[in-house]
């Protein structure tokens, strides 16, 4: 039985955990003091050796990303933290920044020293105002303590950090759209090449990392590479936060080594709710193809989930039981993508608009002959044809749901989902029964 390994989450329950005082009482900012004595290239090597992979979904090795920054480029280098957490089901970065913003701030400072960036940004989605305030307060405290500023802890190194609140667009979680938005433009993905490592923010070399990736850096510096690599699996090292939600007894953040299974996590979360069996689940948010009860023992690391035909993604484990209509769930997700499609490219813009209408019919039991094949063909015309991964992600729930639950879609030709799966049975809270 895999044990929980609280690192990022260990201080969340502390009294006023978000303050510098509380963070330092736990040994906070010791990693920064260590990092100041380490050559930048060695910092990059440590993160490389630790095998830390991007926690935002794609799993790209963080240290390798840092080493792509051309250090002979005379332009300024920038570190940008992607804190635009908006994927349905994903809820790890916002609690982290809410409970312990200094973990992220310390990670930003160390990472900036490594890539030799003197200016860093945290791009937070604007809707989470309380988190923005906590981050700004933490940055202020870090300046007061000399962790940030012209002369970080007297080292002569400069690191400045700006908290930027986005305006609420899912697309701005796409790193190049995030950069455009940060520059004050309309947030739409950029053409690559040039890649951000060469021409990113203001056409300068830029590293963009997820909140959790950067927040993991202090622990690697503090505890060492060996400590980190002792956790996890062969190619997916370390610990990570799994966000358990849905029809489970104790939803929440479960920090565990990579490779833990959903069966273990459900045990840790007290199992499914009373009288319920697992029907389907997402391993990493709505953009990752859904899995079913047959995948309960799939190791939740990058390779394991990929082998099962999905993606680890953001490790947002949304768990649905037998009361849930797959058609309805997929319709809700597709409506999300239709709403959040940025509009730049044709397949995503028009495809999500079109598929929402087909799914609405199927949900209402008014599906037509050929609708399922049409949905699959439209997904085929979007997947790999859209400008960025948003369009690809929009097809994942549809194709995977039809793969596992085709009969429910077929039922949509004759019977409304609310007759087959009355919403009041699947809802978690009695008062939210749909009219």
């Amino acid at each position, binding site marked *: 039985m895999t044990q929980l390994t609280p690192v990022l989450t260990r201080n969340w329950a502390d009294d006023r955990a978000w303050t510098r005082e509380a963070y330092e009482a736990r040994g906070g900012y010791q990693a920064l003091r260590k990092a100041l004595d380490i050559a930048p290239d060695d910092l990059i090597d440590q993160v490389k050796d630790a095998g830390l992979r991007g926690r935002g979904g794609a799993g790209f090795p963080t240290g390798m990303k840092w080493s792509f920054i051309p250090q002979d480029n005379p332009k300024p280098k920038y570190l940008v933290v992607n804190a635009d957490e908006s994927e349905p089901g994903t809820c790890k970065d916002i609690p982290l920044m809410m409970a312990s913003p200094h973990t992220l701030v310390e990670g930003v400072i160390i990472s900036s020293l490594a890539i030799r960036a003197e200016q860093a940004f945290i791009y937070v989605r604007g809707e989470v105002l309380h988190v923005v305030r906590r981050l700004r307060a933490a940055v202020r405290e870090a300046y007061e303590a000399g962790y940030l500023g012209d002369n970080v802890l007297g080292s002569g190194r400069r690191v400045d950090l700006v908290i930027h609140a986005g305006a609420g667009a899912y697309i701005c979680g796409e790193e190049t759209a995030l950069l455009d938005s940060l520059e004050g433009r*309309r947030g739409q993905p950029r053409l690559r090449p040039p890649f951000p490592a060469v021409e990113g923010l203001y056409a300068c070399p830029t590293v963009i990392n997820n909140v959790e990736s950067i927040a993991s850096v202090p622990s690697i510096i503090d505890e060492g590479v060996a400590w980190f690599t002792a956790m996890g699996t062969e190619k997916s090292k370390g610990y990570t936060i799994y966000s358990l939600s849905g029809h489970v007894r104790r939803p929440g953040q479960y920090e565990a080594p990579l490779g833990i299974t959903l069966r273990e996590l459900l045990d840790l979360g007290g199992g499914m709710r009373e009288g319920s069996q697992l029907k389907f689940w997402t391993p990493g948010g709505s953009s990752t193809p859904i899995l079913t009860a047959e995948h309960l023992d799939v190791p939740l690391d990058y390779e394991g989930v990929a082998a099962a035909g999905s993606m680890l993604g953001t490790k947002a484990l949304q768990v649905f039981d037998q009361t849930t209509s797959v058609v309805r769930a997929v319709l809700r997700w597709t409506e999300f993508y239709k709403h959040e*499609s940025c*509009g730049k490219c*044709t397949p995503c*813009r*028009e495809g999500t608009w079109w598929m929402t209408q087909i799914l609405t019919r199927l949900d209402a039991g008014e599906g037509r002959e050929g609708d399922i094949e049409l949905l699959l063909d439209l997904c085929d*015309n979007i997947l790999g044809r859209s400008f960025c991964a948003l369009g690809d992600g929009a097809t994942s729930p549809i194709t995977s749901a039809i793969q596992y639950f085709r009969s429910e879609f077929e039922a949509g030709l004759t019977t409304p989902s609310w007759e087959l799966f009355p919403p009041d049975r699947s809802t978690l809270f009695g008062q939210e029964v749909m009219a």
Partner: protein
Amino acid sequence: MTVEAQPGVYWPPVELVTLTIDGVEVSVPKGTLVIRAAELIGVEIPRFCDHPLLEPVGACRQCLVDVPDAGNGRGFPKPQASCTLEVAAGMVVETQVTSKVAEKAQVGNLEFLLANHPLDCPVCDKGGECPLQNQAMSHGAAESRFTDHKRHFAKPVPVSEQVLLDRERCVLCQRCTRFSEEIAGDPFIELLERGAKQQIGIAEGEPFHSYFSGNTIQICPVGALTSADYRFRARPFDLVSTPSITEHDSSGAAIRVDHRRGKVMRILAGDDPTVNDEWISDKDRFAFAWSRQDDRLTTPLVRNPETGELEVMSWPGALAVAARGLSAANGVGVLPGGRLTLEDARAYASLARDVLGTNDIDYRARVHSAEEAQFLQHWVLDMAHVGYQGDLERAPVVAIAGLELEDEAATVFLQLRKRARAGGRIVAIASHLTRGLAKLGAELIATVPGQEAAAIAGLELNPDDVLLVGERLAGVPGAFTAALAQGARIGWIPRRAGDRTAAEGGCLPNHGGADGRDTNAILNAAAAGQLGALIVGGVEVNDLPDPATARYALDKAFVVSLEVRASEVTAHADVVFPVAPSVEKAGTYVGWDGNARSFPRVLDTSALPDARVLRGIAEELGNPPRAALAGGAPTTGPVRSNDEANHDFGAPQVEPAPMPVLKSGQVVLSTWKQLIDDGRCQDGQPEYRATARPAILKANATTLAAAGVEAGGIAVIGTSAGSASFPAVVDETMVDGVVWAPTNNGQNLGALGMCHGSTVSLTPGGPV
């Protein structure tokens, strides 16, 4: 002085890359995009957002191709947008011709594009010349599977008075927004909203008032952008198209004139990569109705001595009256004006010199000087100094003096902007940093109007650099002298198409070393009774340096007027001959670059070109017609014969004028004609006219305060001839003691005797 073309300097050897497209090996220059490499083997990949003159964007996803080998032995797992993919050695590309994957991706994408498209082709302006329509037929499925609800928008939405937007038809390719930002520098339209609700729009209260807005209509691959002027007026397949040259400036920009049943319906940009790429100004595009206004002259008119009224007369009769009047006069002055074709210019010159025996001919109906005439003969008209439009694309430094390119030669402005974006340095001698100069990234050498000579002298240009000078410098003593002393390549860019054309055609008083009277002298002599007759072409009295004297001279002399429409000159004339506007005759314009560009006749009417009328007068005067008076035949080859150019003029040597001493309450005026203004060649297009920049007066805060004028209040500028008032706007790049106001936008400053460099009074006019 000639500059030898050095092989390898301007055109470095091209590195070729060999790849395979649909099984055909093709070698193309490194950096070529796959979509264009495919064109070379005859494969047209469908596209919407792609445009060869705009930066790649990869938005529409129509041009997807399969790339089984990127040149490194590995293929792309997903189809690639061929409009953003650069070729690589050994790359293997499979387009819709050979790849089912590419074909399905393209068919699927077209189905997506048409899902929300209204399919109103039968009533759409673009129907018949629509890339969406064409590519849906050639690359799309026969039937759509979309049976649900289309998105709806209110339509059309005016993004300006001239440009209307149908958001339902829009495929969001962003060609219009990219053109406006990248080429015109006017990012006044932008994408708004997101997803299927994404749309093109403007900021509230900030219409799409770009001088180049019409180009977006032309490059729109669907019927989303239409012009208020042409909307629902014609179908493309009913139009007859004629390639032509713009008549509105000296750029020589290629245009295409589309007409139907004797009426010009629209003008489009032609394709001339060395002159205008595929862009023209809104003036070139929309200002074509002027020659069909109610005051169009259709028959000869002769003034009845008894009633004093102009009356209709037969051609033979009118020619006889004209010849009689000219013969009886003690001398004839010829003022051909600036709208001439080369053929007409030669006819005026021949009539003056060969038939009437006078050198008193000057086409310049604007500020002019002997220094300018000598500069033109010595430098501009010397074949050895013929420049190339390409000079602008290569010059390390381009300096501008006495010229506001965006207003006076808008197509050249775009060329120069291209140079500026490629890293060229632009330096401008001007009264302030105009919007146009700012868009060029120009360094401003702030100069009081009239003091440009000293500023030019301080430029320190190299022989490879280019100095562009405008016609306004004729009013600045020493300016052309200083320009020649720089030793750089000089481009003289007059405002009108017929300006350099007339100079080439021999319509300068010093042509071939002659010593004729210039425009001012001709009018003064006529006013003094020394010249009893005038032959006047396209001249607006208020354009002349001294309109009052001109009016007096026109009243006093026997005037033969050749005009398209009734004007102030025809009102004073004794004989009026109707002549053809450029769409009703063939001809040649000589551009600022010295290149002669001929154009055919568009409309087959009975209107005669000036040359044919002048031949009639010559015959009536009893002279056998000369070759130049034969008229009509388009010109090819060198525009001037060598014997005409043999005279050695030498460079002008004129001292600069001292700085005027300003009395309290006086300022120096900076002014020019804006691209869109009250010029009569823009009449009859109210939507176009409404997109003009507002008429305002600009000055810095110090200048306004010294005169007691409040920013936002009314400023009045005046001379003894009268005054004009404008809302005052602070522009801190203005030189102290200088104000700028448009010459002919709502109020005609020329009528008040005000021009570039005039000393005028500045007084407050109270609140707006």
